[in-house]
């Protein structure tokens, strides 16, 4: 029999502050975004040719995904998932369009559509909290319900050609060079970010993701917090549905189907642990642009959408590998090195480390 020497515990202690790891990832994603923009700007003439307003306008292609990702992130922070968001976006657009076609004021129709989406989220939340059914199963089911209701309400030829004021404000309009949708997204993203990072609600939400039982013993109302996350997730998917309908100036019952997986991808790329707890909302917001610019840039560069999708997949996997590496020892060492360099550069008088 072979003899294996007992190895003493040589493994170094893991990084002892989570905050630093998470900040590192947000910085990493931001650096990647800047690098990507730089690459496209200098290496792809067509991209540069768009000019500032053209590049800003690209965001209109992926902000729907971003809105869904914001809501999805809330649910994922708590350790759950919502697969019905894409269908919810379709439903919200269809409800709005159908009500408008029936003669309702378009803005009232928007409000009703958003209420419907919040209610849809509440249904998800109710099943998850009251009946204790796994959210993956619940939302897998409700996804089909929302989607078929959208088809039923929309009929054979869903409405299109909305009033100009609506299309302008919620769709393709701009303030100076900045698309209205980008402004809308920025406001919502800031609110969601503050909710998670600084509000009481978000504090409870994240703690639930880390340890649900301990949250309960600490007095966090787990049921209510989870329910709220699903309602907000549904609502944000509804907003995405309005944005997408405004942008295309049409509603379709399958318009949201392609938004779900990219949205989950964005959340993961943004550094949120798919099992809950760890992560930063700011990372998700940056990741919306990282993935969106990557996709749009590749299309402008002349790649097919097939290639773009493939590259996105590769980037996601590479990013996850990088993230794991950063979280582990290599990352700790790299960070220590950077800190030391940084400290020396900043305070040479102190004589360095």
């Amino acid at each position, binding site marked *: 029999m072979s*003899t294996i020497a007992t190895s003493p515990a040589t493994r170094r202690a893991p990084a002892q502050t989570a905050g630093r790891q998470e900040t590192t990832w947000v910085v990493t994603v931001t650096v990647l975004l800047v690098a990507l923009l730089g690459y496209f700007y200098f290496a792809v003439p067509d991209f540069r040719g768009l000019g500032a307003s053209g590049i800003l306008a690209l965001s209109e292609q992926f902000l729907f995904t971003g809105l869904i990702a914001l809501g999805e992130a809330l649910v994922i922070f708590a350790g759950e998932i919502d697969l019905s968001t894409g269908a919810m976006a379709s439903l919200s657009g269809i409800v709005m369009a159908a009500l408008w076609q029936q003669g309702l004021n378009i803005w009232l129709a928007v409000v009703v559509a958003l209420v419907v989406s919040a209610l849809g989220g509440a249904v998800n939340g109710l099943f998850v909290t009251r009946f204790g059914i796994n959210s993956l199963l619940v939302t897998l089911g409700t996804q089909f319900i929302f989607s078929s209701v959208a088809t039923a309400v929309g009929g054979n030829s869903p409405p299109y050609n909305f009033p100009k004021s609506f299309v302008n404000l919620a769709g393709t309009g701009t303030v100076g060079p900045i698309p209205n949708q980008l402004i809308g997204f920025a406001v919502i993203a800031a609110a969601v970010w503050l909710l998670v990072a*600084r509000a009481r609600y978000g*504090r409870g939400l994240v703690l639930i993701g880390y340890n649900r039982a301990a949250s309960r*013993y600490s007095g*966090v109302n787990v049921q209510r917090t989870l329910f709220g996350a699903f309602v907000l997730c549904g609502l944000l998917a509804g907003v995405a549905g309005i944005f997408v309908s405004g942008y295309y100036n049409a509603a379709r019952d399958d318009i949201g189907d392609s938004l779900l997986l990219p949205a989950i991808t964005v959340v993961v790329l943004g550094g949120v642990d798919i099992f809950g*707890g760890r992560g930063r909302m700011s990372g998700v917001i940056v990741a919306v642009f990282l993935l969106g610019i990557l996709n749009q840039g590749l299309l402008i560069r002349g790649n097919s959408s097939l290639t773009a999708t493939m590259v996105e997949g590769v980037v996601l996997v590479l990013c996850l590998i990088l993230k794991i590496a950063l979280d582990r020892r290599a990352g700790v060492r790299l960070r220590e090195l950077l800190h030391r360099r940084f400290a020396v550069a900043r305070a040479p008088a102190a004589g360095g480390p």
Partner: protein
Amino acid sequence: MHLSLAGHMGPSAEQVPAERGLLSREPGTGRLSGEAGRGPAPLVGMRYQGRSLTKSFDGATVLSQVDIAFEPGEIHSVVGENGAGKSTLVKIMAGIYQPDSGELTLGEERLGGLSPRSAQHRGIYLVPQEPALMQSLSITENLFVGILRRGRLRFNVDWRSMRREASAYLARVGLDVSPEQKAEELSIAQQQLVECARALVHRCVVIFFDEPTSPLTAKEAGTLFEVMGSLRADGYTLGFISHRLDEVLAISDRVTVLRDGGKVMAALRSEVDKAVLVKGMVGRELTTQERVRPHFDATGRQEMLAVEDLTSQPAFEGVTFSVREGEIVGLAGLVGSGRTEVAETIFGIRSTDRGTVRLAGKPLQHRTPRTCIDAGLVYLPEDRGRHGIFAEVEVERNVTAGVIPHLDRAGPLIKPAAERLMAKQATDRTAVRMASLDTLIKALSGGNQQRAMLSRWLLANPRVAIFDEPTRGVDVGAKDDIYQLVAQLAEEGLACVFISSELSELTITCDRVLVMYEGRVVGELSGTEITDANLGPLIVGAQHK
């Protein structure tokens, strides 16, 4: 199913014993070989030695630099109090835990990276405290799992020969049952003997018994000891874990005493008596036997917590007690007696069937943890890892997690500076030792984690606090500090409920102790009545007062 078990054999080297079955294994390991079909044959055990074994969990050292050697033909007992490190030691030696440092030597061979499977493969077996048989499988299947014998066709299973051998092994351990019987039909004692037989089937020569007698009656334990005695006569190397000294003295050849994770004594049976062992086991406790605070005078103190006829079936029924301002009331009882369940029901985690809870005279209805905390009633849970800490979260947020709704805010936003100050004051008060408030709480020692948990609840300005096993998983040095802290909080007027399995804790901290047995309060002791001698019989339900 059976074939797939055989198919899980893994690397080819490990298939050797499977194919040869009970035939001799490796030559040169010091074992005599048996002949197939002839059943158990005498073996020669091997010396199994651990050197400077050290292990810590979540920063709390549970075993420190322990040297121990188990000799063939001997029953070597390891004794110590709860938490002394006995179980950790044998689990390391049986490959269940990996030591942080230290080495294991079997015979002349140094073992490294031991797993339960490779340990068994080398002839080391641990009979667990609770038998871990597969309940719905037959005894034969349980005995031969992992080494199912192939039949003549190579892809079938030779049940007949295995059954025959199973009978022989069962007879060897004094079990008169059919090998066809399902494990679930056996009593705990019988299952333990099956575990024993299983060790023999797997040709194990080093067998550890981890507190095997705690679920057994005296008679059943006697049977087990007879089996152990005959294994010793055959030259097996036997390790026996217990805190029952009479048993230990009756069957051991050699005794090692552990205390607080360190070895305090190792001696031959003939060199020790009960008094020596007791002194070794509790040595330190004898010095701190004094009560942490003077006599409690209840006169003029307000009744802070009043529990009346509280019931939550099936855990407990009709529990009534009260705690005054500044009083420490102990809740004693065996695990499963309903202590924790009472606390959880008071705190609104379990549902209440009937009964009332009043806080400072005011009834608390429809209790949830939130309403309890806000009313000034807090609960420090027993299972710190699962119900207390957020392991991957900074100390600061761990500490403020109980008072999120009350954090200082600007509009809807929590003020980070105010939160930090709050956490800093709270952790200073309980003297948490940590690098900074940004340190992940999992990096702290058990004692410091517990201090952080205490500071979480201090932030809620409680009037009543329930401490459930507050010193569990805490280094011994830190235990005293926790007693002192609880006593100090009581001095400041906090009404405390102190739940513990360790009688010595209750005797030194509590002003009054309620004893629970099978879901009911069966006795109450106060002041100088609180002694180990008085508590002991009540706890095991031997005496209703």
